[in-house]
């Protein structure tokens, strides 16, 4: 394969998106899988000079039925909690090979992806370690709010109140998912001053936003981290045709804040504060999905209150749950 230069330019309009696929058709994902769109988009804009590892999860199992794969770029499976460590290994290996002259000294993107269980719960320490290095790597956490590969078990990133296999609503206990969604992107940004770029994104909303964030992260070098929000038609229980719209609902309602942090500066890519674009009621987002069908109005009010609190009370909305400094 001829060597190609990597392009990091901002994509200005859907007609400028590269046409060639490097994650192609023929994978065993669900109908309307949003995570497949996430995979496709990041590798499309990263280009062919990229190596990818993926930890166990939906996007590993669905993409590697026995001896068959939709990947065109080199891709390797790694263990469930090993998203971060495999990213370091890959980036360090590439650096060593280049230093020793075994391969040409040219930029090669190293991207690791992991699910919300593999990245946000189990592999968090590995990712934390990776973000403290100086290697050029990008870690993408695709968050479908459940262990979707094994039929939808709750994780630390499932939305409060959601029905999952682990948290079925019952007559005595309506809400079993009592944990509030873990803020992984904010946690990693606040805790890792060496991390050059942290962002949250959604593959389809706002259009091009995710693709440009991937390009920005790759251009910065590393270590970088992107958290994507992937509505899952199977586990969130909606018709596959809505998968690109549910994410938009979640972002517009403020439940899922979209931001990027570059060199310590927070930029809201969809600003839900009342002084900016404002928010739609979370009810619209919740009622579109079967996994919230058991909620009663009080639960919705509670979620709404916490979302309002996040956007209006926090010092850095969506990033750090801190409401100012106490005077001594």
């Amino acid at each position, binding site marked *: 394969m001829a060597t190609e230069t990597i392009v990091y330019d901002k994509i200005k309009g859907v007609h400028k998106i590269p046409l060639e696929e490097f994650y*192609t058709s023929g994978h065993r994902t669900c*109908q309307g899988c949003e995570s497949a769109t996430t995979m496709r988009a990041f590798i499309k804009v990263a280009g062919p000079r990229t190596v990818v590892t993926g930890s166990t999860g939906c996007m590993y199992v669905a993409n590697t039925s026995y001896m068959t794969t939709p990947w*065109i770029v080199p891709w390797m499976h790694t263990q469930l909690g090993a998203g971060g460590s495999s990213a370091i290994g890959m980036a360090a290996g590439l650096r060593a090979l280049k230093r020793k002259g075994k391969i040409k000294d040219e930029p090669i993107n190293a991207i690791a992806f992991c699910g919300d269980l593999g990245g946000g719960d189990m592999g968090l320490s590995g990712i934390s370690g990776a973000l403290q290095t100086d290697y050029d790597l990008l870690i993408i956490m695709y968050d479908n709010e459940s262990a979707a590969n094994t039929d939808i078990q709750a994780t630390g990133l499932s939305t409060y109140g959601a029905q999952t296999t682990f948290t079925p609503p019952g007559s005595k206990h309506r809400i079993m998912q009592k944990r509030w969604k873990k803020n992984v992107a904010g946690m990693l940004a606040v805790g890792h001053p060496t991390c050059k770029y942290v962002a949250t994104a959604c593959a389809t909303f706002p259009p091009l936003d995710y693709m440009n964030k991937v390009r920005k992260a790759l251009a910065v070098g590393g270590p970088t981290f992107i958290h994507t929000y992937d509505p899952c038609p199977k586990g969130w*229980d909606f*018709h596959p045709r809505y998968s690109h719209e549910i994410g938009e609902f979640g972002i517009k309602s403020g439940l899922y804040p979209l931001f990027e942090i570059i060199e310590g500066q927070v930029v809201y890519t969809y600003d839900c504060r009342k002084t900016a674009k404002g928010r739609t009621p979370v009810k619209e987002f919740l009622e579109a999905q079967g996994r919230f069908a058991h909620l009663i109005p009080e639960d919705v009010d509670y979620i709404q209150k916490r979302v309002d609190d996040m956007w209006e009370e926090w010092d850095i909305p969506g990033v750090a749950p801190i409401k100012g400094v106490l005077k001594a």
Partner: protein
Amino acid sequence: MIKRVEINYRGIFQKNLGKKIGSDIVIIASRMGRIGFSNGRYSDSPERNGIPCKYFAFVSHDLSEEELEAECGAKLDIDQCDISVVLDDTMLKGVEPWGWHGVRPINEKVQPNGTLLVVTKRTPDELLEFIAKKPYSWKLATYSGDLSFGGLWVFRDDLTHEKTLGAVAGIDSDIIGIEAAEGYLRYKTPKEPARAEAARLAYEEVRKTVRTVKPGEGVEWKHEIPVLPKWFEFMEGAAVPAVKREFSLGPKGQSRNETFKRGTTKNQRPVVRFDLCTKCTLCWLECPDQCFDQTDDGLYDIAYEYCTGCNKCAQACPVKECIVMVDELQFTDDSSPWEAYKANPEKYTEWAEDRKSTGRYIHPMVTGTGLEFLEGELVPFGGKRASPKK
């Protein structure tokens, strides 16, 4: 003697339906003093939306429970069956549950004199235009019903389950008897006589519709049993060859995974009116299966053998009537729609409108705790459109 029933269903949407039919066959058989056993096909897990999956139910008159279980326990697939139930008639176009399998005929496991039992609104003769021929005679029976789609958490209670039990009893009383099925349903739901009545009606219906299919009747179907690579044939480090990189504008310009096409996941497909297209790229951008190929005139061709019928392109398309989902049984091939349009635009548009008029895809959708939504012109969602677009 073991009687084998396989239940072909669409992953997730009919998971609860398939499981319920399998387990109720076992319960009814055991109420008749027989031994039953039911399980899912091991290789189907984890299930994905729409992918063809199977449940099995086994009934024996003479074996003990242990012997039956030893005979029929977790297996990749069974070799043959007495009854093959098909819960979605679009699966008659073939099933491809995993890579390397190729598109298998739906009646592959039907044994000589076995029965293919289909929920459909079509006649057996219409269905035979899609089903593979066999070297021996077998039977085809239908019972009418809507496509019953639920979700991961919900079972869509529209009597398809009861009808299927009645239909199985109508085909082979050695599996379950209709009186036992009715008795069980009356015992289970004493206040709902409609359930037992639905079973009886389906029982009578299949006894009328069942017809023998002669050897050689049906369509030619090229399908070879897949030979998977052995462990010693693997590349170093158990590596799998990547898809070869190829890209050019035009139909099939993008290289794709040849060993798993998964087009049998769809029960509907997008029909495009190219003359209405504004070349906005949204269908191509939103497609999670990368089915759209850009052509040199800016239109997008569709690789139907990879399409999963998820509706996203139709939902994303901003032009009314440009992309419409149409029932899969309206189509006989996966040829390029763009090439057909280029060859004769008027004829293609006329053909597309014809498909839309007869097979526009409408089915009610059930979500969460069983709320049902009917599709109107645009889909209402709790009284509102799901799209935030105004």
